[in-house]
């Protein structure tokens, strides 16, 4: 015991190594020793490693310092000490990107690379390639080609690995070494084989036929290196996936055969590859899953981790296939590696039945405090998907979540829990009241401002619609008294929502808001004053908040300022409203995420508009603000020589068709490429912008049409289109045409569909009723829907057809109801507001009563009569 302590003290005494307390300037000073006439290898090695150590610690050298050290280092080539020489290589590599004139060592390195000392050659090649640029490489080509087929594995590997790096910068050059690389694949050395396969694939990967050949040759031979096998598995899997080969193809057989390889590394790689194929069916999954099941009970943590991680992934797409492993997974719940335990739990949650949930939740609760936040988030997400799957279990799950909320945790973790609760509230009306009260309790003691603000916003939106809104007021007002300014401001906004929505609470809330007017913070006072004012004059403004996105509004305001004509006031109605297509596509995503998606969508619209403005011909036309851009429509089959996609950009009085044309033939040059349209009545072509020259690759052509006066003929039509161009044969590598002669050709494309939904932008109305009352022109029509047999199907069809946004979550239909009301909101091209109420009744088929209100009678009647 005594001895041990002494030993420890002694160690601490001596642990002051040469590397502690290093200083850059003194080390650089020491490096002068490199210039001495007789070199002391030990001393110089130590100085070099000190310099490298400093660089590793994050010390920066400026170009002068680096160049000085670099040149001093070149002197060390005189010394023949192997370790010193190798340290010099390392130094060269580390300094090559800071120092200047590094090519000075080229000749020394070339000498080492071709010299007799085997220990130097491989490392010299690697150092040499880091200092040479593309122009110098030509000179080295001969040596590198020789090195690739060198009989010494170190040399061959070094040359191959460097060639691999080079394929990304000088691909053409490396392509010329293909025969040497091919020879290297047959090398005895396992690493050379692996590197050669990597380089060969990198060279060939654009040429699918060559890859197929390579794979079919190599899958028959036996690769000795597990690394090479795993790389070949990846190449094969990619091929199977992209070509959608059937499972009885020899390539798939190869993947399956690799499940019986003797190396675990290869087996796992094969299982992973099979599981991640897109077209896989459960029957073909089974062999891979049983392999992973075996791995679950391996003594090696990494193997168990790999297996569980992969099973967890399959459980998303094929939960039933994983149920066989449930017993093994349950054993892993108590694994000492918490990462493995957590993955096991979440996998079980995905595959588990309703009955086992309570038991699992208990198990999770027992260890949740021990795992890292990152994994807690994973668990919370699993619980979320569970809530959506088994809505009846919301009671116990919600209880569990609120217990988690009370525990310690970082912002990300708390946000994930709050998100989950919010999602449950939105998905499951029964859980709403309990969820809201859990959240209320949480904000009582919430240290994260951003989260508190979000929850207050939600309370303001959902609270007034609850059975007993007044009970939330106390929670919200407590925030006003206790919290910091940002939260107080959010609380004021939430209070105003209550006042505007619930007339019976109005007078009480006004009293509270008056008190907020004496708050110490500007923002809080301003908000209170604003809301008090609005409550007296225009309540709807509180209920339906600003509908345009900030980005769009900003650019509109800038436009306005640029015009510097202020006789007319800025009209907010001229700003296009924010569309919520993204939100509609992903109704299940979190509110936070959809908010982000909405933002990006609004931004993409600005981007799109900016993008179009860059085309000078289009810019010359005064198109006005972009109203809506459609999704892409393919006008050709996906395997043809020319691929054409169209995006419809809708403006108030114009329709811009943007064609993305791709030439997939490397040996053809297309000239004067344009799209001819067969225009329906009423449409007029304003301008057609073609592509002068289209090499292998893609380009954009545009056609601008003006909308007909009469809206009646602007939807439900197809515009016939033909691609016209002049073909010239050319050299596939250089792209230079073989002759000036060419011939005209055309290519018939599919019709471009123009729908009503192209001209309607979905917008949200937080308070549909208020917006509805504002509009007066009304049209009504009744239909029997032929194309739907159930109400959910009919609702989906109508939403898609009209392209409007369902409001108040009326697109969610409770099970087993025989009638349903759907509320829709949208903006017609030019910014005319359109609202619709659709009543569905299930009798023999589905009957629909559609009531449309719009600011324009014409539009109201068109929308009403278009269905059917």
């Amino acid at each position: 015991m005594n001895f041990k302590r002494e030993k420890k003290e002694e160690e601490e005494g001596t642990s002051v190594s040469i590397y502690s307390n290093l200083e850059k300037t003194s080390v650089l000073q020491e490096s002068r020793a490199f210039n001495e006439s007789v070199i002391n290898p030990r001393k110089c090695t130590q100085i070099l490693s000190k310099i490298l150590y400093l660089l590793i610690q994050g010390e920066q050298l400026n170009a002068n310092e680096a160049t000085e050290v670099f040149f001093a280092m070149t002197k060390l080539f005189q010394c023949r000490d192997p370790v010193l020489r190798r340290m010099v290589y390392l130094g060269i590599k580390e300094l090559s990107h800071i120092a200047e004139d590094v090519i000075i060592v080229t000749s020394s390195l070339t000498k080492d690379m071709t010299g007799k000392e085997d220990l130097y050659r491989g490392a010299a090649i690697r150092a040499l390639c880091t200092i040479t640029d593309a122009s110098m490489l030509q000179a080295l080509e001969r040596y590198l080609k020789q090195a690739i087929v060198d009989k010494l594995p170190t040399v061959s590997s070094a040359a191959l690995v460097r060639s691999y790096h080079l394929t990304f910068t000088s691909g053409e050059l490396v392509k010329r070494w293909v025969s040497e690389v091919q020879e290297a694949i047959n090398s005895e050395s396992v690493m050379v084989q692996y590197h050669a396969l990597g380089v060969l694939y990198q060279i060939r990967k654009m040429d699918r036929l060559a890859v197929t050949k390579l794979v079919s040759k190599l899958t028959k031979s036996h690769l000795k290196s597990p690394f090479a096998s795993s790389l070949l598995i990846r190449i094969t899997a990619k091929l199977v996936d992209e070509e959608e080969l059937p499972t009885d193809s020899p390539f798939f057989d190869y993947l399956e055969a690799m499940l019986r390889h003797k190396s675990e590394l290869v087996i796992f790689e094969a299982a992973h590859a099979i599981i991640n194929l897109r077209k896989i069916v459960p029957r073909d999954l089974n062999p891979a899953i049983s392999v992973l099941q075996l791995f679950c009970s391996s003594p090696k943590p990494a193997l168990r981790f790999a297996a569980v991680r992969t099973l967890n992934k399959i459980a998303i797409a094929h939960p039933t296939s994983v149920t066989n492993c449930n017993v093994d997974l349950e054993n892993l719940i108590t694994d000492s590696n918490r990462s493995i335990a957590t993955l096991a739990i979440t996998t079980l949650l995905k595959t588990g039945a309703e009955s086992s949930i309570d038991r699992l939740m208990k198990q999770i609760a027992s260890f949740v405090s021990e795992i890292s936040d990152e994994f807690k988030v994973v668990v919370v997400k699993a619980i979320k998907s569970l809530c959506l799957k088994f809505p009846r279990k919301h009671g116990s799950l919600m209880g569990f979540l609120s217990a988690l909320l009370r525990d310690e945790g970082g912002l990300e973790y708390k946000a994930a829990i709050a998100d989950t609760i919010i999602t449950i509230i939105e998905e499951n009306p029964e859980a709403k009241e309990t969820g809201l009260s859990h959240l209320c309790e949480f904000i009582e003691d919430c240290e994260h401002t951003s989260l508190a603000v979000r929850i207050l916003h939600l309370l303001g939106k959902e609270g007034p619609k609850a059975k007993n809104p007044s009970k939330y007021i106390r929670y919200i007002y407590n925030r006003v008294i206790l919290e910091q300014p940002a939260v107080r401001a959010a609380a004021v906004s939430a209070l105003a929502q209550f006042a505007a929505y619930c007339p019976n609470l109005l007078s009480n809330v006004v009293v509270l808001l008056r008190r907020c007017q004496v708050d110490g913070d500007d923002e809080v006072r301003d908000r209170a004053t604003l809301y008090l004012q609005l409550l007296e004059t225009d309540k709807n403004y509180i209920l339906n908040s600003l509908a345009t996105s900030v980005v769009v509004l900003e650019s509109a305001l800038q436009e306005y300022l640029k015009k510097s004509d202020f006789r007319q006031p800025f009209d907010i109605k001229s700003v296009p409203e924010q569309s919520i297509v993204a939100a509609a596509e992903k109704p299940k995503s979190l509110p936070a995420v959809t908010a982000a998606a909405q933002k990006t969508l609004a931004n993409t619209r600005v981007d799109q508009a900016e993008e179009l403005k860059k085309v000078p011909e289009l810019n010359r036309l005064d198109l006005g603000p972009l109203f809506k851009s459609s999704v892409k429509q393919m006008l050709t089959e996906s395997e043809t020589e020319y691929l054409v996609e169209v995006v419809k950009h809708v403006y108030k009085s114009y329709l811009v068709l943007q064609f993305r044309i791709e030439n997939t033939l490397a040996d053809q040059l297309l000239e004067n490429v344009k799209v001819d349209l067969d225009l329906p009545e009423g449409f007029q072509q304003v301008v057609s912008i073609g592509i002068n020259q289209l090499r292998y690759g893609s380009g954009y052509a545009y056609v601008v049409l003006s909308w007909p006066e009469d809206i009646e003929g602007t939807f439900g039509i197809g515009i016939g289109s033909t691609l016209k161009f002049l073909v010239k044969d050319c050299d596939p590598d250089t792209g230079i045409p073989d002759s000036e002669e060419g011939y005209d050709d055309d290519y018939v494309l599919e019709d471009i569909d123009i729908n009503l939904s192209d001209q309607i932008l979905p917008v949200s109305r937080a308070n549909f009723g208020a917006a509805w009352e504002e509009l007066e022109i009304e049209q009504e029509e009744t239909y029997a829907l032929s194309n739907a047999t159930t109400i959910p199907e009919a609702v989906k069809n109508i939403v898609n057809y009209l392209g409007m946004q369902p409001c108040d979550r009326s697109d969610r239909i409770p099970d087993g109801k025989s009638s349903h009301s759907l509320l829709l909101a949208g903006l017609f091209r030019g910014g005319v507001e359109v609202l619709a109420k659709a009543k569905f009744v299930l009798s023999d088929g589905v009957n629909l009563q559609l009531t449309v209100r719009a600011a324009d009678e014409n539009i109201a009647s068109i929308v009403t009569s278009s269905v059917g």
Partner: protein
Amino acid sequence: MDSSLLDPTLYIVKGMVIMDNDGNRLLAKYFDSVNFPSVKEQKTFEKNLFQKTHRANSEVIMLDGLTVVYKSNVDLFFYVMGSCNDNELILMTVLHCMYDAVSQILRKNVEKRNLLENLDVVMLAMDEICDGGIILEADPSAVCQRVALRGDDIPIGEQTVAQVLQTAKEQLKWSLLK
């Protein structure tokens, strides 16, 4: 790419680090300029990594979208980083190679002081294991052979007095500990 198949690339290793038991880096090499554009990001990541791994010795952890395999001995921690979708077993092979090579270089005496004394050779070994993210060699004895182990071939005359004393002290200590 929408499928989660692994891309057939040779770039596997995103980083290799050796830390001491206070979480300070002794050696570090990163090959991922997207996740780790500068030393600042690397050090933040290492701090986080060390916090999560220095107590539980459980071989593998997922952190910040990366899979990290690790191993520790006395006062040294060895880490190898890779993409979170990648084959953990390949990363394990690299880790084992790194650890075993270092262990051979340090004559099974894997601890910080000894490592620092042989830092130059260990640097060379790391360079031989991985080149720019590509696994160059995974066999520890091949790695040691390539770094030209200095070993006994240094004549006693070229060692300093302190080094001789150090070696003697070391040997004495080991014989006592046995």
